[in-house]
Structure formats: C-alpha cells, structure tokens
C-alpha cells in the first residue's frame, strides 16, 4: 500500500490509500551514507560518468483507484464520445499534452509519469495541462514521487501525488508547505512576488 496525497486547496491536503499498481513500490533500503567518502572527497569521478541516460519506455503505474490508466494513444484512439465512467490516462515524458486539445471531456485524472524524479519534463506537461488547456480535473504525479519535489509539483498545477512506497506521508504533507512565499507565476495561480502590481497594490498586499 501507499498513499495518495490530494491537494484541494492550499493547506487542505487529504490522504487516500492507493492499491498496488497505482504507485511505484519502495526501492531497496538505502545504505547509510559513507561520511568518510563524502567528507574526504570522492577522488577522480570521470570513470563514473555514464553519458547515455536510459529513457523510459513504459509507465511505472498501470492503475488508479478506479481502474486502469489508459496511455495517451489508447485514449486518442477512442471515438471521442464522452465515456460512461470516469477515465484516467497517463502521459509519458515524451508525450505532447497539446494533442489533448478538445479531448479532455470525461477525463477525471491525468497522471504525469516521473520515470525518474530528475526528469523535469513532467513539470512543463502539468503546467500546459493546467494553464494552456484549462484542465480542471486531477493532475497526478506518478512514479518517482518523492517528498522533496512535491512543492514544485504542486506549483506546476499537480494536485495528486501517488507517493512512492517508501515515502513518509507526514514529511510529504509538510513539504507541500516548504516556502511561505514564491517569486514567480506558476500554474497553481498562487500569489507571487513578481506580480504585475502597481506600488499601491503592492503596499496593500
């Protein structure tokens, strides 16, 4: 089992149990870091660099709590008539969310795949879904969904977080409130410092 964090509004975070298949299971436990290696340096690391990074081929989750997740091609292959039951789909990092223009009806959940937590394409995909396509349903981060990226994910319009199996729920909730203020506009439409405000509006804020 893992947990889905659902962000309804700032500060209103609820948790829901997730069935197997709807989250990425915990990896093997970490060894404790070797502080000798860290604080005495790691020597010459050139041989450790792997230039070619493996790209994801299949989504890391196949399901959500109300059924299976369709891939983007599967969803687009449907005739376009609104489905009877709520549908969830999953977008891969290489998928172009703009092909969903006019094809959002009936979608309850769009899952955004984080095959690796440091593949940042999902942030732009979520931003486009929310701000460009105006998708109102749940945008759910799936895959390597880790505590330390949740704040940025939420800012990019993601509202569901299928935590990886090993992530601590309380710490995850806290991390959604890591920063008291933000500088820049993002798809969560939160108030931001660099807003197009006059001095008067600034003073009143």
């Amino acid at each position: 089992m893992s947990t889905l964090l659902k962000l309804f509004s700032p500060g209103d975070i609820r948790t829901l149990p997730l069935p197997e298949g709807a989250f990425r299971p915990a990896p093997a436990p970490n060894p404790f870091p070797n502080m000798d290696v860290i604080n005495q340096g790691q020597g010459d690391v050139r041989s450790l660099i792997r230039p070619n990074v493996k790209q994801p081929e299949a989504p890391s989750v196949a399901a959500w709590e109300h059924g299976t997740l369709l891939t983007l091609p599967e969803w687009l292959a449907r005739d376009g008539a609104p489905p009877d039951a709520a549908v969830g789909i999953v977008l891969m990092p290489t998928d172009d969310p703009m092909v969903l223009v006019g094809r959002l009806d009936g979608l309850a959940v769009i899952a955004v795949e984080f095959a690796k937590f440091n593949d940042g394409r999902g942030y732009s995909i979520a931003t486009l879904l929310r701000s460009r396509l105006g998708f109102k349903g749940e945008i759910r981060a799936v895959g390597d969904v880790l505590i330390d990226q949740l704040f940025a994910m939420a800012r990019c319009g993601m509202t569901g977080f299928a935590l990886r199996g090993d992530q601590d729920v309380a710490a995850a909730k806290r991390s959604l409130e890591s920063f008291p203020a933000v500088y820049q506009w993002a798809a969560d439409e939160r108030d931001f410092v660099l807003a197009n405000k006059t001095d008067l509006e600034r003073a009143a804020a």
Partner: protein
Amino acid sequence: MYIYNAIDQSIVDARVKQFADQTERYLGGRISEDEFKPLRLQNGVYVERHSPLLRVAIPYGLLSSRQLRMLAQIGRTYDRGFGHFTTRQNIQFNWVKLEEVHKILADLASVQMHAIQTSGSCIRNVTTDHLAGVAHDERVDPRPLAELMRQWSTLNPEFAFLPRKFKVAFNGAVEDRAASEVHDLAFDVYRDEAGEVRLTVKVGGGQGRTPRVAPVIKTGLHWRDMLSYTEAVLRTYNRWGRRDNIYKARIKILVDALGPERFGEEVEQEFAHLHGGPATLAANELERMTAFFGAPPYQSVSSGDQDEARHRLADPRFNAWVKRNVAKHKRDNYGAVTISLKPLGVAPGDATSDQMEAIADLADRFSFGQIRVSHHQNLVLADVARSDLWALYQALEALGLSEPNVGLATDIICCPGGDYCALANAKSIPVAAAVQETLASKAQDIGTLAIKMSGCINACGHHHVGHIGILGVDKKDEEWYQILIGGRTDTKTTLGQIVGKAIPREAVAPTIERLTDFYLKNRNNGEIFIDAVERLGKAAFQAAAFQNDMSQTSPSPQIQEAN
C-alpha cells in the same frame, strides 16, 4: 544594491531550514545518494576530489562589505581560512563538511546571501558586467534586470530539472565584459529611440565540449516581457532538449539541431501564449528595481588630480597600477579599481579571510562599502575618487594586493583543476603558476593578453575565449595540454582554435613564451596580442611556437619528457 525585504528573507530562511531537514534525512539513510545529489547541488554542494565544496551565489558579482566580511568569517570557521572566487562571479569554499553546510547557509542568510541554484541542472546564478553602473560605455545598467531575473529564477518550480545547467548573462555596454555570448541565454540591454529599455536575446552559446557563440533569436524585446520570453525559451528547452546523453543536453545542442531560426520560431509560438500574461512585469517594476542601484553620493569636485600625476611620475609601479588596474569611470574624477587576485605564487582567484576583511575595510573607506567580483576572478572597488588612488594603492601594497597586472599575461583565468576538481583531466594551478613566472618580467611590455586555462573540456577556465587558451587533456592517464589561440569576448566573440600538438606540462610555459616572443618581434605600434594574431594569422604563431615539433610525429610521453 538590492536589499531583501521580509518576503525575500523568509524565502531564503525557509530554504536553509529545508536543506537542514534534507541533510538530516540523508544522513539518517532516508534519502538515497542519487536522490540527495540534486538537492545538495541546488544548494551549492559538490563532493570533490578531497572534500565537499560549497559554492555561494554572488548575484551579478555584487557584494557589500558586510557580506564580504561574512564570507571571510565562513572561510575561517568552516574552511582553511580562504575562499576561491570563480569565473561566474561566485565564491567557493573548497574544504567544508557536509553536515556543517546548513550552518554556513544560515550564516549566509543572515547577510542576505544564499547558495541556491549555484549548481545542478537548473537556472544558475545570473552574471553581468563587473563595471555595471559605472562603465563609461554603458547604454543601460543591467543590474535591475539581472535582479529581476534572479528573483524569477529562484526556486522556479518548472525549471528545476532541466536537461542540463542553464546560465544567464546580461550585457548593457558597448564592450561585453560579461562574455555574454558564451552563455545559454544572453541579453543585450539597450534603449530604443523612444527611450524604452529593450533587449536583444541570444540563445545557445557556451564553452565546454561543443563551444558555440550564441546566435540572436529575438530583437526589440520590451523589458516588461523579459520573464515571459525567458519562460518560453526555457519551456521549449525543458520539453525538447536532449536527455538521452548528458554531453548533448545543453540548449546549444538543441539550437544547433533545429537551427537558430527554427528554434526562435518554436519559442515565438510559445511566447505568443505568454505575451501579456501573468509573468509580464509591472510598468513601474524597472523603476522600482533601478532605485536599488542608484549612484552613490559622489563628490563633485576633484582635488587630487595633480597628486595622481605627481605620484605616477615618481613611482613607476604606481603608474603601472593606475594604467592596468584602474578602469575609466563614467565620472572623470572617479576610477574603478581592480584588486588583482593573481599575484605570483597564489592560485588565481584565491583570497584569504584576512585579505577579504581588509578589502571590506578598504571598500568602506574608499568605495561606498561595495565590492564586485569580476568573471576574471578579481575583486573590484568600482567607485574610487581619483584623489584617493594613491592612498588606496599604498594600503593595497601593504596587504600584498597591489599587483599591477590586470588584463596582462599574468592575470590568468584558471579553474581549480586536478588539485581539487573530481572531473579534471589535468592540473591547472601549477601550469598557471609556471606561465605567470615565465612571463612576469615581460608582462608589462607584452601588454593586454588574456590567458585562460581549463583542466578539462568543461571549460570552467574559459579557454575557448582566451587570446591564448590552455586546455588540460588526458592521454593514456597522463596529463597533457592543448594550446588554443585567437579567442576573445570583448566586442565580437570569437572562439580560439587549437594550434600544434598536445604538449606536456613543463612545455606549456616555454611554448607560450615563444608565442609572446613572436608577438613582441612582429607587433605594430599599439597593436595588442589578439589583434596581431588576427593580422598575422594563427599559422604564423603556430610555426613560431611549435617549430621544434614540426617534424615529429606523435612523440610518446616518455620521449617528450626526456627532452
């Protein structure tokens, strides 16, 4: 300079708390090595050859004396009593302990500083002209826009995991002292006929494995649209930049693959959606930000000009120092003084805590309490009354900081190299030291000559744009050095080209001496080295410097060393 308000402070404080928590979870085994790595990198922490290193952001190179004193204190408390100023106007502490970093970050936050995004695949510290605001050839002071860019990029949620690092630079002057065209994103700031501040946008410059001069993709961008347009550039890069190969992941590769025109069209399509949107800057924002960078209370009357002339006549070293280290200021009775961190026998860019404190005191006494870091790894007191030059020079001389070598062959830009860096192919610091020593006696005669040294292809030492570049390479686990000539960034960015074969370390200084000797023999009156290279051709210099090697084919390292 920009002063934090309560919101700025709350963000930086929250970041310190966040990293302390992340470190604790990492040390407790609750975050894996791989997952912790970008978290520490985005807080400036590398793990280098012998120790972790902390890189602290100095936004566009501007420091107050109070901040410099804090850096000195950090160097003393957490490092070995010194810091290293980098080619991106930052400072690095080379010997820190990971578990103490959050304490250093808290100390930094107490003087409105941080290490946010000084590393990692994100938008890095914004850089600009170290003479911004005082340069005689300045069109627009770029610092207010650079500060807006700093704020916008700080903890930007969408662009924290780009394909690779992303460096932004601003230039607002005729001479580009920020090397902006070798950055991922460069803004040329100017005023149009109506007096409106506008930007020329260049994308995809860089050094490293695939050196490129950034092509222009947009002209006439209004400053209010700067952030919307930057968002469009970054979204295009974040979505389409290569992630399958880290050596092909910089934006320059994407710009290359699509061609600048096609890349510009992609950005334009995205920008069409963002133009006039929420990232548009308020009409009064530039004015509000510019107020932070207002002119200090300059004295209007100059009284010491005769003093300066008299001392210059009497003291040739002072004369050389004024000539080399004092740049023309937009006000005639002021000068911008560069304090060279390149005396013989010191790693370029290093300053001890004692020196930093002394320089902070001099900044308070002579330059309105501000210091700039130049990408040449020197410090600048930008607003010194000419009548104070002699007094300042004497104070610097007492501190061993009056090396009159700015812009000369001994003012070498140099990366930390194999002495510190875990990626380096070869050492840099001893090579730079040998070149400095060899050329020291001729440096004043040679005049302007930018020598830039990198210990590997990543080009932290900017070797591609040195008049003479030195690149450390690895051949069968041995350190070799490749010489480049012809690079420059001043008015027209040109990339240097490799001349001759790779040479062993002890041959570097003599080879460079042959290049400078050839120049001295063949120069025209008033012609600097790089102009002579352009007039005479690289081949002529190569023939002069590598004459002994011309007949040999690929000598083995052993034979070469025996020579």
